[in-house]
């Protein structure tokens, strides 16, 4: 393998390790929410520092790679993608931490009807699944898989858009559960962010593989209609 490929492989491996850690953070966040597990929530908050360390490390690796290899073409796009994916992973890490902070506020397990009505659990599961599939798309250089993620994000948006009304109604009917309902609503917002961040990463994968900019396309379409 050429020297440059060895270095690129190292970069990729490091990013995938970070991806694993962030996925674990997200999964734990879901557990912490469902069980109202304060201790677990606290661990997640603490572990975010590890995510940040990955972020710094990968930034530095990219910087060195630019300086020493002056990459062009697919190599250049790869390193640019790694930089941006790294930033997005770091933000997803922050989002997981945020979820943990809301889970920490829960006094006990979230009431079943609230879970049912808001669809927060399937939404959360889909976000984690998208995150995992995105990792596969990056690992296997698969822009087709990446494109499916952009579509899947719409389902999350849909649940998110309905959540306001549902939670308001729930709060009106269960005034004693307002703080619990607010925590769930906040978590839904966070999970919606995860969907957006996965979409950003998917766009970077497409850019890196196909040299096509997919970002901001949506905006253009909207302006047209």
């Amino acid at each position, binding site marked *: 393998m050429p020297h440059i490929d060895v270095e690129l492989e190292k970069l990729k491996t490091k990013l995938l390790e970070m991806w694993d850690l962030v996925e674990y953070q997200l999964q734990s966040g879901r557990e912490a929410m469902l069980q109202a597990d304060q201790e677990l929530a606290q661990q997640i908050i603490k572990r975010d520092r590890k995510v940040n360390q990955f972020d710094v490390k990968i930034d530095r690796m990219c910087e060195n790679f630019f300086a020493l290899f*002056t990459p*062009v073409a697919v190599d250049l796009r790869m390193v640019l993608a790694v930089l941006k994916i790294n930033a997005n992973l770091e933000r997803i890490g922050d989002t997981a931490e945020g979820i943990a902070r809301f889970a920490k506020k829960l006094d006990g397990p979230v009431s079943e009807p609230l879970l049912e009505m808001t669809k927060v659990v399937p939404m959360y599961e889909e976000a984690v699944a998208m995150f995992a599939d995105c990792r596969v798309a990056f690992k296997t250089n698969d822009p087709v898989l990446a494109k499916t993620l952009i579509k899947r994000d719409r389902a999350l948006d849909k649940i998110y858009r309905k959540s306001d009304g549902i939670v308001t109604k729930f709060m009106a009917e269960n005034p004693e559960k307002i703080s619990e309902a607010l925590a769930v609503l906040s978590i839904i917002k966070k999970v919606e962010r995860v969907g957006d961040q996965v979409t950003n990463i998917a766009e970077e994968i497409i850019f890196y593989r196909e040299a096509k900019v997919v970002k901001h396309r949506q905006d253009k379409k909207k302006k047209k209609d």
Partner: protein
Amino acid sequence: MNKKTTKLEAKELNAYYGDFHALKNINIAMEEKNVTAFIGPSGCGKSTFLRTFNRMNDYIDGFRTEGDILLDGRDIYAKDVRVDELRKEVGMVFQKPNPFPKSIFENVVYGLRIQGIKKKAVLEEAAEKSLRRSALWEEVKDKMDKSALALSGGQQQRLCIARALAISPSVLLMDEPASALDPLSTAKIEELIYELKNEYTIVIVTHNMQQAGRVSDHTAFFYMGELVEFSKTKTMFTSPQDNRTQNYITGRFG
């Protein structure tokens, strides 16, 4: 708004050294006051192609071309074209600095002397102007009658550029002009190319990908006598269209 004028053009150009088919059906149009870089593996035909623009290959036994090479829309291989006139329009700088064993001054005005210009004042003015343009004036103005061979490699190369500029060409061909120079001299030559493109159309052969990226507007990638890809340098170095280009510029050839 910015009207683009084609300065140099090759149309269905084929070139042969005897039986060897060195350039294969090349079509390219280079814009005026632009820098075009030629890149490609050793032996792919870059120098051969570059030399067709000032008919430097004419001296080589068995060399022949088919197709057209146009300068300002005129076929430079047409019967009525005088090669010495052509070379006034199309100057050339080589890989290895090749100053003549004469004074710095005589080196710069060499082409003008050949043209029969004798007036000292005219020659001196031309020498200063060319040396200023090639960013060498400050370093040599006090030793114009010293031997050019006493200059450093980087200075010699800038002297050769001054010599090429002195005859006021509109095209400058450079065959790996900085390959034998240290980073500082290289930077000077690159700065110079950047300056010169306001007035000249420049074609530069280089093996240094970063150099192509830094100095050129367009890049042409050659492979085994073929022009594989010709595009904006930005495009070529971020998203080349052909796999052979990608493999070459990322250093993954062969």
